[in-house]
């Protein structure tokens, strides 16, 4: 496997990653318990230690001078060699290195380890979700779209059909998984829409997390309110709510 180590962040003042002919040396660091981070498990230490004929335990002098030098270009690592595997394992969980582009938001990380295969897998997975979301989107009627927008917190009643479709498209493109969770895989979506709609028409009043219909508290969270409206015992109240909403 070929992996690439790349510096991600630019210095906010100079606007460069690194000045010409300058380098940063990534090296082991001390852990909170006073040990030394090497990135290797016991098994790795033994296996790679034998292959490289060095002592790879954290206290070994080998780690005093171990470094990976990063200058203005990427570092390419071939994990099929023992040296490459050692570097890869060292970098994989290093505090300054994000493991893959999806891990780029890791706090304190200003390098990223890119594995082309893994990266492709990750991107394919995301694209698959996106394709599925858009397939489901195609099945929606305009009325469903308006309901769905309401679940995303948008007041869809006053929007034109074109704007409703455009807004839905943007939301799905931005976060397809959220659309699947909020609409496609949400078995309470109809009740949830009714609840949101009733709140927006002030039929159900929402005070912080408290949902009230008249003087009756129907839930102390959204989930509780949905469960209340789903409950067979409360169907008369639900019907009253719907009637009042239709009247508005």
């Amino acid at each position, binding site marked *: 496997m070929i992996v690439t180590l790349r510096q991600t962040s630019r210095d*906010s*003042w100079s606007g460069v990653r690194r*000045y010409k002919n300058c380098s940063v040396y990534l*090296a*082991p660091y001390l852990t909170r318990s006073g040990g030394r*981070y090497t990135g290797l498990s016991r098994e790795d230490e033994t296996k790679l230690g034998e292959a490289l004929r060095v002592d790879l335990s954290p206290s070994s002098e080998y780690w005093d001078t171990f470094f990976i030098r990063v200058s203005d270009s990427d570092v390419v690592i071939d994990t099929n060699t023992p040296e490459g595997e050692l570097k890869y394992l060292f970098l994989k969980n290093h505090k300054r290195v994000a493991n893959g582009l999806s891990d780029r938001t890791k706090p304190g990380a200003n390098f990223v380890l890119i594995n082309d295969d893994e990266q492709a897998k990750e991107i394919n997975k995301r694209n698959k979700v996106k394709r599925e979301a858009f397939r489901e989107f195609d099945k929606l009627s305009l009325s469903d779209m308006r309901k769905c927008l309401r679940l995303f917190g948008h007041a869809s009643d006053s929007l034109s059909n074109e704007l409703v479709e455009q807004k839905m498209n943007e939301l799905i493109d931005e976060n397809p998984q959220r659309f699947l969770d909020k609409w496609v895989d949400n078995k309470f979506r109809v009740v949830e829409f009714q609840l949101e709609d009733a709140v927006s028409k002030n039929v159900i009043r929402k005070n912080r997390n408290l949902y009230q219909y008249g003087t009756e508290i129907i839930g102390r969270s959204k989930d509780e309110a949905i469960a209340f409206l789903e409950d067979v015992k409360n169907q008369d109240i639900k019907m009253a709510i719907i009637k009042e909403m239709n009247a508005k």
Partner: protein
Amino acid sequence: MASFNTMENNVLNSLVLYKSKWFSDLVDESKLSNALMTKPHEVSTVLSYVFGRYEGNTIDFLTMGLGKTIEIESRQYEWPLMIEFDKAVDIIQAKWQGSSISSGDTPGLNQTPIQIWVRDKWFGPGAVLAFDDREYQARVTGAPYQDGEYWVYTLLVADGQADSFILPSLLSAGSKVSREGSAYEEYSEEADIVNYPTPFKLRNQLTTMRLSYDITGSAVSTVMVIAMRDPQSGKKSFLWSDFQEWRALRQWYETMDRWLVYSKYNANADGTTDLAGTNGRPVYIGAGLLQQIAPANKRYYTTLTLDILDEFLSDLSYNILGKGERKFVALTGEMGMRELDRVLRAKATGYSLVDTHFVTGSGQDLTLQGQFVTYKGLNGIQLDIKHFPFYDNTVYNRKLHPITGKPLESYRMTFIDYGMRDGEPNLIKVIRKDRGLVMWHTGGSVAPGSGHAKSISTLRSNAKDGYSVHFLSEQGLMLKDPTTSGELICDAE
């Protein structure tokens, strides 16, 4: 009359600092606040020197204290960073006999021309270019021509042998060529060209700092005296100030020095900033020393070894070609001093400890000694190690070393190249004209200099039983070539 007009280094060598009661020799002209009004530059240089020497305000000492300052009239300042005069140029594409080159080809065989596409017009006709493997060289034939955004060069294998060719891998996209030399026939008209690379520009801005303090009317008037003796004439002179004022100055200088190290630039690309002060006007902050050297050489360590130090100094020297210019000062805390001392004393036969005086020489031969421990190493490297108390301060450095429990910052070693660049110092303090150190007071029942108000006709600015003193400074730092500085950082989770 007290005199402080000869502020040469040799005068300052015999400087003494002591606390005292007011005495008759302390005339008004030598009162620090008065002297600052009449001789602002000289006196603030003395202060930088004094605080640098006695309080460890090293950055101010290395700049203002040694006269390495410039005055400017605008808030922002720019300087060019000429990183290189020549460079290797990327090959975008190469062709031989009209087609792209594949791995089995023999481009250039029998003196057949090779075309390469590059981004810059970097070479002239007759230039001999070296490929990534310098065993392979080719000569530019004729002038290049432009193809879209690229320049096309025609090359012939330089060794002139019919069976020679250039390895296809050396002509692949992303490979580089650089100028090795040039060669011409008799009576030729062609010539290679001179390149004028656009310098990389660095921009910084001044930060306005302020400090105010109050003196109550009943404060005891103990004074702080800076006594100086001119070794040539033997004449003594004084600068003095109220002790309270001195304490405030000390805090002021310490804060300024710390800020010159740690401040972070806050302007947008167009020079504006989104940070606003109470009155709605923008608050500008300049880049401090650490931010200026952040993209330079940086190495993390857990245990310092001679190999690490040696390699690091060699990296720093890489961008300095003249051996006489390889002068570094390493600012470090108590623990860093111990680490360096352990490594250099025990193992470094290549480094020799130099005996010290405080400051010797002048201009390019300036040597920092005395409180600096100086080592001279191979390849003309001179390393001055200076204790930097800011790195030890537990108030400001709260992240601790997991084993020793000392501040982790105490192990930090900041290497600054303080040599000369084209006759100018590399590290310079930049101040706004006349605003390097501005001091004033608002008087109440008491005023500095004139004491308590004894008459109803004495005009004072407020009703306080005392007076307030205000300091202001508009300043910044310029590390002209940050590529030759760097840091060794002890790293922990």
